[in-house]
């Protein structure tokens, strides 16, 4: 019966998220039509709002990966984080990278991970399958690393030179097939090798079963 309760909770939660998104978009659509750069309050524009929302999604997803006790929730958190990263790419006017992120990461890698989760855990054990170790030391190290990176991010006087936001798909295609042709072909070779290698590694053991 626990699962039933959970199902209901999930449905309600999803509905709430969809509803919130709908209401928000309805509220914001006139502002969007007026131009995202117009300040909403003070110097805070709509673009800023969306950026912070996307960034929050990314970070929250990552936090779910890191802290969730249930590996399935970790996987869902990863989904959110990857989606958020794709949103960041859109913000950085890297449209093709964003689409590739969605296709490859969410369509490919994440599904793979979910499969691996399903294949390696009996669902009944899901809750204890994601136990942790060395929590404190890892937290110290990661906090130090985070602090360092944040200091670097905010204190270094980056010589910023904003570049244009034209669509990148066509230029990327040209670049990949001209300037980066060799790495491109090598990448395809690596993917082929990966494909074969993954099949061989995984198949042998299954057959042995």
């Amino acid at each position, binding site marked *: 019966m626990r699962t039933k309760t959970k199902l209901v909770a999930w449905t309600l939660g999803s509905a709430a998220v969809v509803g919130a998104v709908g209401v928000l978009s309805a509220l914001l659509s006139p502002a969007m039509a007026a131009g995202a750069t117009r300040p909403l309050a003070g110097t805070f524009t709509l673009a800023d709002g969306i950026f912070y929302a996307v960034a929050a999604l990314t970070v929250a997803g990552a936090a779910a990966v890191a802290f969730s006790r249930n590996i399935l929730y970790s996987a869902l958190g990863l989904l959110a984080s990857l989606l958020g990263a794709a949103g960041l790419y859109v913000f950085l006017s890297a449209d093709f990278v964003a689409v590739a992120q969605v296709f490859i990461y969410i369509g490919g890698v994440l599904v793979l991970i979910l499969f691996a989760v399903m294949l390696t855990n009996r669902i009944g054990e899901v809750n204890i399958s994601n136990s942790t170790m*060395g929590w404190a*030391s890892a937290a110290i190290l990661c906090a130090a*690393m985070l602090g360092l990176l944040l200091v670097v991010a905010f204190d270094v006087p980056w010589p910023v030179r904003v570049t244009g936001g034209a669509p990148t798909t066509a230029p990327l295609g040209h670049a990949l097939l001209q300037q980066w042709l060799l790495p491109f072909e090598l990448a395809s070779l690596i993917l082929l090798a990966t494909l074969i290698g993954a099949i061989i590694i995984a198949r042998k053991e299954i057959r042995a079963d």
Partner: protein
Amino acid sequence: MNHATQHLGPTVVHAAGYLWLIPLFPAVGAIINSLLGTRIQRNLGKRWNHAIAIGMMTLSFLTALRAFAQMVALPGDERFLQNTLWNMLTAGQMQFDLAFALDPLSMMMVLIITFIGTLIHVFSVGYMADEPSYWRFFAYLNLFVFAMLLLVMGDNFAVMFFGWEGVGLASYLLISFWYTDIEKAQAGMKAFVVNRFGDFGFILGLFLLFWSLGGIWEPRADARSVTYVPEIGYKADPAAQNPFESTGPRAVVVDGHAVKVGPTLNFRELRDQVVIEATGVGEHLRHQKLWGVALLTLVGMLMFVGAMGKSAQLPLYVWLPDAMAGPTPVSALIHAATMVTAGVYMVARLSYIYAMSPTAMGWVATIGVLTAFFAATIGFFQYDIKKVLAYSTVSQLGIMFIGVGVGAYWAGTYHLLTHAFFKATLFLGSGSVILGCHHEQDMRKMGGLKKLMPVTAWTYLVATWAIAGFPWASGFFSKDEILWKAFTQRGMELFGVPAPWLGPAIFVIGILAATGTSFYMFRSYYMTFTGHYRGGAGHDEEHGEDPHSAHAAPHHAPAAAHAPAAAHGHDDHAAHGHAAPAAAHGVHAAPAHATHAAPAHDDHGHHGGPPHESPRSITWVLATLAFGAVAVSFLGIPLLWTGHAPILEHWLAPALPAEVTFLHFGHATEWLFQGMGVAAATIGWFFAMKLFKDGQSRVPHDLKHRFFGFWTVVYNKYYVDEAYHALVIRPSLFLAAFLSWFDQHVIDWLVNFAGWLARVFAAIDDAIDKYVVDGAVNGVGGLTREGGRVLRRIETGRIQTYLYGAAFGSLLVVLLNFLFR
């Protein structure tokens, strides 16, 4: 001699879009033979394996000839062909392309490599005919040639270094070609490890040079500074008064030519900015110091450490004699003609760097002459024909380094060329002898082969003339030029102390080494080819192992003393051997012969019987190389004889822009010194003939017994290997054992202690908990447990542990960087 002119301009580049083909062909051959070789050998026969390899080598040689033709047609100072394929990496000011370049120096090297390489491939057809994994040998050989071509043709240090490591790999693969023999596999490993030491020095020097080219300095007043814009080229930078403050690539305009300055990996850019005085780079480099030592001196010495490893100089020469475990064609190609000369090539290539530092020059020349003398003395008493040649190679490499050390860059390079020919002839001759004597390498079991193997004997003799330094054989011209230049060089320094006596001292030791060279080379000739055949019948030694390792030597000594005495009864032995071919060898060779093309090879399918002349593919190669060993002497006939600068010096001049001053002496002095060279060769030859001709004289035997202690020391190569074993290998093994012990006892104890501590803390925690119910105490207890857990995890071998190390280490590095800003 005519020195490089005072005002050098930037290199004029001529594009040659086909240069990449030269290394490509051997690479293709290596790929085909390594991927499909076993099938080709099984289905089509061995002849296709070697046809592919030799065909690729020939194509490569022809392409090199084409480049040579193009280069000859250019005016003398414009001989620079360049071919950029694509950009590999750009990071800040460092940029390197996959690019090839040929200047007269590398052109000479390419011609040597492809020509002698092709001949040695042909030789290998006969030599390796019995080899089951024939394809593997040719794949490795082609791989070696590919890497060697990259080494000499690279337009920048990156490509050169790739080749530098590639030849090391190929050398390793070929030395331990018969890897089932543990000694040979170990010889390969030894070569690889010793070379690593050298390469470490080389790459340190490289980084140091790159680093030293940065910084801020003022170009000379008549030069104008500009910045470099990739799309446009060079343009004046109006914004910055001193463009050296900008981060991008920079350039200086000298006489209307833009010269790129700053850190670079490109040889041409390096040469241009250093050689052209107006850029101020030369001054800048000369005045930099690191820990009080002139930076150029450090660069030169460190890079020479790389050369020590690759070119087998003291004290890193130990791998080369062991490398004789490889098949003889490999010894000829890699360990005599090409790879081991890479160090000489590198020093000559960077002549302008070395010429700026007298200490670096003195260092190179001193190490060179010590090696030359030291190796020559070891060569006196070796009985293994290949070991004699190996020590002779070490010695000759030392002579080359004298040349490039004292600043006679062209002479050192010329000795490289002549040595490539005569040493390849000698090695292949020894290979032919070894093949003829059924994989016997001990000279005490040879003798009298002149009648049985006339072509081999004559070519060996010609090459011996050349190496001993008799006039009109090539070694004379190169060696005497080097020693003469050493005598007239008075500007060298030893570790910063001016040492005008160093040049003459080098000359004296060098002439002694030359005498020794002549002696032991004629000794090997007389022991091998004159007198009676002392060998028995078929042997059961596989592929001629070194019969006397250092430890076994005293046991062999009585047998050696016995050999000349027993020379009379040898006819019986020969007949016996003829009648009873060793059956085991016949069996393993039989399938190979079923598919083999040349019927001339059939006669060494069985191992046994009297020595015989080698098949025609071998004798032709020997004859060609011996002819070459004489013919290249025309390239270096000295000024003294003809009134013109030697052809090769004239040819190499644009590639060796270093300015080195020598003292001037009269013609009479120079004639006198040439006479001394001939006298040295004659003395060595005379004694060798007296002592070893026909194997009749008992003097060597008596002398050996008189000075048996001394003989033992030299025969065992001064116990250098043992010293290495005691000083390097033993301590490292001991260190490993100690660490293992430390791990087992101390770390485990620490871990146990930590666990115990955790338990104690937990107990205390528990106790305190009873009285002070406080969350903070819980935290302390948890932290201790965590600490114990972390300590215990040090030796888990789990990825997370390593990640801790990596993350913590990177944090530490960055934080230290902040601290010491």
